[in-house]
């Protein structure tokens, strides 16, 4: 079947249009993050971040344009190392020179403006590490019990495990909250990582699929050699399952990094917030004015996920396909 050039462009053009639309929000996020504040409030919009320069006292200095008085003169504020210097002058419109200049310092300013950014980052990374370790260890152990040991009633219990995935979080939210409250865990990170050590149904399902595909003989011959079940699990099955373990770890990392509802419910002190909750808090405090800092903050929270995608692209695609096709 030969595909004509016409047919090719019939698929390429809509793809390109869709791709541009999908890329636009991220591109706009980064561009806004690199702009000075006055360029976030212009109509029509300015696309690239620019820095204006004017001749003041015979020297070309960076300025902020405040507005034009008439057609030929504009009022500007001279900028120094700390931003506005408080010195205002009028210069001819024609003498203003604009250069493309990304303001990298917006990122530093956003970090300062968010208050506890280093704490947010630390809390998020601690939670990511603990939940990844917890879910990989526990889910793999449980999946082994559901796939490579034959015990009576196993498959019926597994159906029960699958059924728990249907339970919407709001149904268990209140009792979990009051339980953690009774334990004195509200306002600590514990409610967000301790459950990860008790296996997640979804991860057990994924790992079980993989373990079932491994040949039975592997375990049989090891058993004949007198290896214990734990030994077979740790030194035969786990090493063979690295690809799927990476997928589980990756998905858990993302889930923890992106989680908002959990931190919103359980965390009370701003110092304990995660990045996602901290970003929402920052937005609710300062939203609507400092768009350049808000976009810089959003870039800092979303950026690591994008970087992770580029490093682990094939695991993402494989993992997503696994979840959708094997169901």
């Amino acid at each position, binding site marked *: 079947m030969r595909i004509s050039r016409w047919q090719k462009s019939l*698929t390429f053009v809509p793809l390109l249009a869709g791709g541009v639309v999908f890329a636009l929000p*991220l591109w*706009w996020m980064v561009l806004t993050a690199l702009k000075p504040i006055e360029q976030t409030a212009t109509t029509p919009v300015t696309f690239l971040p620019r820095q204006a320069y004017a001749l003041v006292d015979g020297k070309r200095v960076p300025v902020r344009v405040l507005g034009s008085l008439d057609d030929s003169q504009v009022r500007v504020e001279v900028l120094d190392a700390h931003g506005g210097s408080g010195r205002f002058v009028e210069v001819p419109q024609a003498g203003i020179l604009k250069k493309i200049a990304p303001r990298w310092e917006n990122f530093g300013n956003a970090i300062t403006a968010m208050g506890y950014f280093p704490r947010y980052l630390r809390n998020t990374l601690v939670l990511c590490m603990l939940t990844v370790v917890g879910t990989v260890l526990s889910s793999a152990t449980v999946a082994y019990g559901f796939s490579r040991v034959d015990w*009576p009633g196993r498959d019926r219990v597994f159906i029960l495990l699958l059924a728990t995935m249907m339970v919407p979080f709001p149904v268990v939210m*209140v009792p979990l909250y009051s339980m953690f409250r009774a334990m004195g865990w509200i306002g600590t990170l514990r409610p967000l990582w301790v459950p990860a050590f008790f296996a997640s149904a979804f991860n057990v399902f994924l790992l079980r699929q993989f373990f079932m595909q491994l040949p039975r003989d592997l375990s049989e011959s090891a058993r004949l050699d007198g290896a214990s079940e734990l030994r077979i699990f740790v030194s035969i099955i786990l090493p063979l399952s690295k690809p799927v373990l990476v997928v589980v770890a990756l998905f858990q990392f993302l889930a923890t990094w992106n989680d908002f509802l959990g931190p919103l419910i359980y965390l009370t002190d701003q110092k304990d917030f995660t*990045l996602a909750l901290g970003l929402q808090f920052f937005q609710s405090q300062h939203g609507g004015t400092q768009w350049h800092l808000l976009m810089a903050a959003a870039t800092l929270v979303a950026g690591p996920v*994008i970087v992770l995608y580029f490093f682990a692209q094939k695991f993402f695609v494989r993992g997503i396909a696994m979840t959708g*096709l094997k169901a």
Partner: protein
Amino acid sequence: MLMTRTTRRELHLGLVFISPWIVGFCVFTLYPLLASLYYSFCDYDVLSRPVWVGLLNYRDLFTDEVFWKSLGNTLVYASVSLPMGIIVSVMVAVLLNQPVPGRGIFRTLFFVPSILPLVAVAVVWLWMFNTRFGLVNEVITAVLPASWGQGPNWLGDERWVKPTIVLASLWQTGGTVVILLAALQEVPQQLYESATIDGGGAWVRFRHVTLPMISPVVYFNLVMGIINSLQVFVMPYVLLGDTGGPNRSGLFYSMYLYQNAFSFSQMGYACAMAWLLFVLIMGLTWLATRGTRGLVYYGGA
């Protein structure tokens, strides 16, 4: 029934291996399920012991206008965003399955938004949909004739709040696209070839080969979509705050539930809402399964 020694040994081994899940299931799922059902018949504020009130919470729900509003908002959102999401995903996946240049780049462009933190995504859409300086209205002004007036006040206008959230949600359908793409790549080429020999055009091939072959995956995404869209929370919460925007037009079920639990300390009421949501989700999933019976083709798998 008597078990042999081997069976008993296997049973012990199996239970030891799944013991983390047994503990987790009892503590984090079974107990909360039962407790929440009990609380739903109680007046409960977390600080004091729950007091049994019978069906009062459920009866109050029926006369609570805000409850009905949030339920209506959620059903409208789900019934628009879910089919649109599936249609967009199928279209993108079919296009990506063609031999076009730059497929990998396109796949990345469509997929990456779906894995980003929802809070960051919502914050970006807040800026994109800003009435005065947002890029969306900028494009509208540039494309549409001036006589049409300005772009809408997306998040400030009751009529536009839900469309805004639907549009923002469509940006994150990339996960579905990747699943569909994987399914499309497993469709045997001979099926297309024989359809072509039988004189079928592109539409016939899509309708009679592609759609049936990917129908199990579409069904899976439909069910997941029902479960997820009825629980939509983060995006509207960040975009509109917990009041749900102008005239509560963006107050969704989970937001009102959260408000009852944590702003009004009406934990029993929130549990009653949660159980109704659970029943609704199961009912709609059952309906979707019934409704698509005969349309989903399992022959290939």
